[in-house]
């Protein structure tokens, strides 16, 4: 075949099928490789990659140095915080142990959390066996600190039974890593105190939503 400049060859039909072959030199031997196998299974290093069309992954994807799994988007185990308001920099889910402290014993003592960016949603279920020296108003052990700069988080009680007092309202607010329960035993326009609500055999399920720093 006469020598022909590449620029003189006819244009290919795009998009390529992947079965087209190219010549490459491998271990000093000229061999062929298909377009599909040109980068298959091999990391492609680039300073930046811009995709102008849509992008999809047939399995998982990862950011921030995380390892991609079988599906979904993986974030690194230790988040790299990004200050930009339009950047999602963290996702984590797990469990935590809500506690009244002291020598309280429990029949049930479980909690779960999900953190998306700076937003934490934590649920808890406590069934107290014997209160002992534990707190009668506060649950500690929250999985993340609340950001003081963003005001009190929100505490919502979904279920309770066998409280130490009869209440007409129960709610709460968050300290740095503690949930403080406030309640009303009589009608009032303002919550002014924190009556002791936890006792032996009390059960309570609640959710807190707050921002971390």
């Amino acid at each position, binding site marked *: 075949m006469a020598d022909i400049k590449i620029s003189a060859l006819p244009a290919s039909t795009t998009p390529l099928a992947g079965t087209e072959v190219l010549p490459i030199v491998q271990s000093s031997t000229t061999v062929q490789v298909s377009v599909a196998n040109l980068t298959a299974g091999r990391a492609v290093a680039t300073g930046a990659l811009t995709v102008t069309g849509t992008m999809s992954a047939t399995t998982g994807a990862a950011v921030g140095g995380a390892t991609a799994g079988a599906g979904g988007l993986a974030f690194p*185990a*230790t988040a790299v915080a990004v200050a930009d308001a339009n950047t999602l920099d963290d996702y*984590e*889910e*797990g*469990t*935590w*142990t809500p506690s009244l*402290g*002291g020598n309280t014993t429990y029949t049930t003592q479980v909690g779960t*959390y999900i953190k998306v960016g700076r937003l934490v949603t934590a649920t808890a279920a406590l069934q107290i066996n014997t209160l002992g020296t534990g707190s009668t108003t506060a649950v*500690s*052990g*929250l*999985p*993340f*600190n609340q950001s003081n700069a963003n005001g009190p988080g929100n505490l919502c009680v979904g279920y309770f039974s066998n409280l130490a007092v009869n209440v007409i309202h129960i709610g709460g607010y968050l*300290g*740095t*890593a*503690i949930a*403080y329960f406030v309640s009303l035993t009589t009608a009032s326009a303002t919550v002014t105190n*924190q009556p002791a609500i936890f006792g032996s055999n009390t059960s309570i399920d609640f959710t807190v939503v707050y921002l971390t720093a």
Partner: protein
Amino acid sequence: MSLTKTTAVDQITVTENGIILYREATRIMEDGVQLSQTYHRSSLTPGQDLTGVPANVVAHCNTAWTAEVVAAYEAAEAERATA
């Protein structure tokens, strides 16, 4: 094929007011390859009882929780309770 389950404290954070947060990672490994990982988080307030807390976390608590830090935290809590 051998399956192993390990639990390790993989994060410890000491915050400005002395509260210490830590994360325990439980990993299921098969022949050295990680199959799954779950997290359990805890937070400790200055002066809190440390029974059952992992030793490396206790070491951080003992360093961070000086008498001044514990007193400052308790004073802040007392102020919050009366506010």
